[in-house]
């Protein structure tokens, strides 16, 4: 038995909102960690885990599951919050983020907790691991799909370029990568630090199918994931245009929120704002 999908757009939005609130709570409690990326990717994670994926939170090692790899490990608070919301582990465990003896490491450690498909943090590594999984599935003629979530900044890594070339030339059509195109990195805006454009053309040159989408429109994200399933002989990249810090006004689009957590006071303001958004979703 697989996980029951959520199809109602409203329910999906509410789920993403819950995940965002839990990200804020866990970061306040952790007193360290990354805020902007996790909030920015909450809609992508929601679309994947609550609609697109074939998986079973009660049987995380199910061999036929679709697999998700996280290449930019630092946004793991959203991975943890999503897995907990989906039922992989108790939501209360989110409050152990980054603490001694916790499974929820500051950057993810493989299978801690089950559902975490890869260790990661050093940028550029996760995409190669995902490619290995896609290659293995091809060799075994398995039908499950491989997803990899990456940041825009990590496209500056040499390994990432190696991986892009390999996946395209090896026609890994069971691989779907999502780029969190939020335009920020630690030192500033990506296009000031080391421009990444034209990103679409780079992927096309390496023989990828490219879809660009608003990374906060869950319906469009699901459509993009479904389109990717129909593409043959090419891996798909979904360039998801996102707003870093999405949902919290003082964090949105400010690169300074890349690598720090909210203080308890800021956390309260953030939760109030997210609660207000929740009220609006419910009224829709």
């Amino acid at each position: 038995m697989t996980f029951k999908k959520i199809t109602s757009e409203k329910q999906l939005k509410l789920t993403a909102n819950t995940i965002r609130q839990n990200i804020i709570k866990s970061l306040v409690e952790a007193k360290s960690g990354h805020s902007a990326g996790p909030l920015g990717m909450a809609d992508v994670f929601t679309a994947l885990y609550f609609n697109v994926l074939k998986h079973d939170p009660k049987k995380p090692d199910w061999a036929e599951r679709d697999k998700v790899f996280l290449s930019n490990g630092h946004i793991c608070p959203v991975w943890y919050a999503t897995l907990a919301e989906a039922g992989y582990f108790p939501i209360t465990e989110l409050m152990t983020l980054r603490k001694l003896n916790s499974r929820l490491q500051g950057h993810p450690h493989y299978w801690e907790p089950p559902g975490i498909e890869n260790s990661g943090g050093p940028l550029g590594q996760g995409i190669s691991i995902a490619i290995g999984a896609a290659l293995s599935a091809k060799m075994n003629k398995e039908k499950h799909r491989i997803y990899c979530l990456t940041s825009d900044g990590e496209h500056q890594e040499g390994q990432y370029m190696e991986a892009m070339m390999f996946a395209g030339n090896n026609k890994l059509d069971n691989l779907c990568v999502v780029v969190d195109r939020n335009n920020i990195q630690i030192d500033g805006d990506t296009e000031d630090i080391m421009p990444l454009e034209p990103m679409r053309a780079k992927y096309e040159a390496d023989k990828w199918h490219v879809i660009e989408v608003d990374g906060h429109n869950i319906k469009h994200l699901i459509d993009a994931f479904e389109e990717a399933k129909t593409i043959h002989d090419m891996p798909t990249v979904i360039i998801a245009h996102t707003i870093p810090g999405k949902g919290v006004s003082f964090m949105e689009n400010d690169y300074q929120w890349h690598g720090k957590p909210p203080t308890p006071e800021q956390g309260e303001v953030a939760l109030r704002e997210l609660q207000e958004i929740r009220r609006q979703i419910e009224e829709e």
Partner: protein
Amino acid sequence: MKINSEMKLNEKLFTNVEKVPSRDGYGKGLVELGEKNKDVVVLCADLTESTRSNWFKERFPQRFVQMGVAEQNMMGVAAGLALSGKVPFVSSYAVFSPGRNWDQLRVSVCYTNANVKVGGMHAGISVGPDGATHQALEDIAITRVLPNLRVIVPCDWIQGKKATIAAGEAVGPHYLRFGREKVPVITTEQTPFEIGIADIYADGADVAIITCGLMVYESLIAAKELEKNGVSSMVVNCHTVKPIDIETITKAARKCGAVVTAEEHQINGGLGSAVSEVLVENYPVPMKRIGMKDVFGESGTPDELLKKYGMNSSEIVKACQEVVKRK
């Protein structure tokens, strides 16, 4: 010194010993593993022939993955294959893998405890004319510090084959180090080999030479030479640098009271350092390390280089005489 008959070493050891590159053992081991286990896959970064992975490729083309010149991606892809149940062997030159892709080895493989095997070819100064850029003399140091990783340095092609098969049958990350040049075939199919167990190839009482790789042969030659001068030496093939065989090393030091280490690697961080760590904590004795003395190599023939940089039997003889005097 007395050759240990239990080790069933090559009888022609001191007469007309045949020479074969140790990397041939990697190639043959891969094919043998491939026959036994359909999950074994081989990855190579544009060095298929010189890593001998072409033998596997010819036999199992569907299980061979050409990565192009991209060692970092290769290590990560191997991790992904391993997490999916495959047994991947990552093949390249040691300077590139684990040299260039050490971070990927550290996080994607070792921290994850992914079942990846890394074959580093053309290690040591004996790669010769290619020069310092291609002479991996630091690979043991950078691998033996990684948790979960085992580090093995076979002394010839037969041991190389056994090590490859043993690594493929064991679970967890392994690094296997091989050389380019033809080296004397010291062992036979009957010679015992077990990961983590150092083997006493020759027994003696005055000094223990603890060694690995192509220096095992040089050590045996040195032991024979020392015998003529009345020094009885033990030769220990410490093919597994990690986990190191504390028991055998400590016993050897206790029996001989002096130790020389010999390896084709930087003097800092390699087998000599590993043995020093064991003895300092367990049974300190006068000791000397033979290896590359914190300098880079250069172009030259393997023999010229080993002589110039002090990694041959005559250097081992001198070192043994020195430590015996210090007892």
